[in-house]
């Protein structure tokens, strides 16, 4: 899933300054799971913004809130025109993709990002998320025992550990495991150390000309004789 952090409260207050009626728009998928912009966070933020405004004595904004099942999918945007009709700005707590999907659907409406979209990762423990994939477009997990060197090695190198690793940790961060030590140990456990010994050529960055687009091919794999 996509992992994000809500922007600092003061930054959010600064962003909404020019607008009167603000719709705080949550997302029911990834942003809910990473506690950055689901229904709960929308309601917390709504209250906090109202409270801050009341304290400041300057009633400049009115707020409304709504949470979509998913902001990045037009299918779920159906009810939105009604909610957006009488506001001046949408403060989206969707990830960067959600923000852009809303902006594309409402060409006249300013949309503000309420979260900093950080990475694709997984829940490590309650309240802790770890990055796991950088969407390199050429997945090599087969060769690396299911541990991604591009994401988990700070240098993203492909032919084994640098000389900076100490006590199994990365030279860049003593709290972070060295990806290549993990890969070595797991390949050893799987009796696949030959994969460690292989030479891996430089990455092909043409697999990621930005922005990328994927067009669906066949819905099912039809097997032999196909095309």
């Amino acid at each position: 899933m996509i992992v994000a952090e809500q922007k600092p409260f003061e930054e959010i207050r600064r962003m909404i300054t020019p607008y009167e009626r603000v719709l705080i728009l949550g997302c029911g998928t990834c942003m809910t799971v990473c506690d950055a912009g689901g229904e709960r966070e929308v309601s917390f933020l709504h209250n906090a913004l109202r409270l801050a405004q009341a304290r400041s004595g300057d009633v400049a904004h009115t707020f409304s809130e709504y949470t979509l099942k998913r902001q990045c999918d037009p299918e779920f945007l159906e009810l939105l025109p009604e909610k957006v009709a009488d506001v001046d700005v949408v403060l989206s707590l969707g990830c960067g993709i959600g923000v852009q999907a809303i902006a594309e659907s409402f060409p006249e409406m300013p949309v503000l990002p309420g979260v900093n979209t950080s990475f694709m990762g997984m829940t490590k423990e309650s309240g802790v998320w770890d990055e796991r994939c950088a969407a390199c477009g050429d997945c090599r997990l087969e060769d690396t025992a299911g541990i991604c060197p591009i994401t988990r090695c700070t240098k993203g190198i492909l032919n084994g550990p640098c000389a900076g690793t100490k006590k199994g940790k990365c030279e860049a961060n003593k709290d972070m495991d060295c990806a290549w030590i993990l890969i070595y140990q797991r390949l050893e456990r799987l009796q696949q150390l030959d994969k460690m010994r292989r030479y891996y050529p430089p990455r092909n960055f043409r697999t990621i000309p930005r922005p990328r687009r994927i067009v669906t091919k066949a819905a099912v794999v039809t097997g032999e004789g196909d095309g």
Partner: protein
Amino acid sequence: MANSSFEEKLGSNKFVVTTEVGPPKSVDISEMVHHIELLKDKVDAINITDHQSSVMRFPSLGGALLVKELGGEPVLQMTCRDRNRLALQADLLMAYSRGITNVLCLTGDSVDVGDHKEAKPVFDLDSVQLLKMIRTLESGTDMGGNELKAAPRFCIGATVHPEADFVEPQLVKFDKKVAAGAQFFQTQGIFDLASLRRFMQYASQFNVKILAGIIVLSSAGMARYMNNNVPGIIVSQTIIDELAAVEKGKGLQKGIEIAARMIKTIKEEKLCHGVHIMAVGNERVVPGILEAAELVNA
């Protein structure tokens, strides 16, 4: 045929001595010039470091050029941290055209350990891929498969870490570097000769030259600092204790003594093919070390 005087020395059975000079964070290069002049006739080659520890400085290519101009033999250190494959290849063409033909291929320290922590880390290639790339250039084509009108020829080396606390993966990488074309290795700092002996038992099966890295320590505090802050370095407790035992102000002298003693043993017992002395900022003491190790170059 040997391609440089350094390559020739590697090919002979002589004990090879290299050292390194770190360029300044300055446009005043007088101190670097002084260090090069001091060392050029006493060692077989001088490495010029490439933004060592990811700290921005005068470039290694400029330093290597200076060594050449001053009549010394440079080893150009080249990391993959700051340049993509276009820039690396271009710098190699430039280096060769100016007579710089020894290259030490490194992945490079992480940007996070340096003084520009917000910089974009490049790492388009890693050290093994850089070695291969140089061999590709020598074959007459660039990495894009395009022909070079004239091809360079280099003597290429890499590093290896015999004292890594988990050495097996480092040895796998060493094998890959050999297969990729490395002719010589300058090891990370050696502080315990037993680990060098163990490593050489393994490495002697390959036709490559191993120069043991000798770091000149100046105090127990420096050793502890390096253990905590310099990627990969592990100074043994015995050495730290030895440094800690001397009175204040005598640390560097002790460090020189330790370095000279290790070099002497390595040479006498023929543990490997030579040494690479890293004085980290104390370049001026290197001649003294050579003398104490009875290694003054003919």
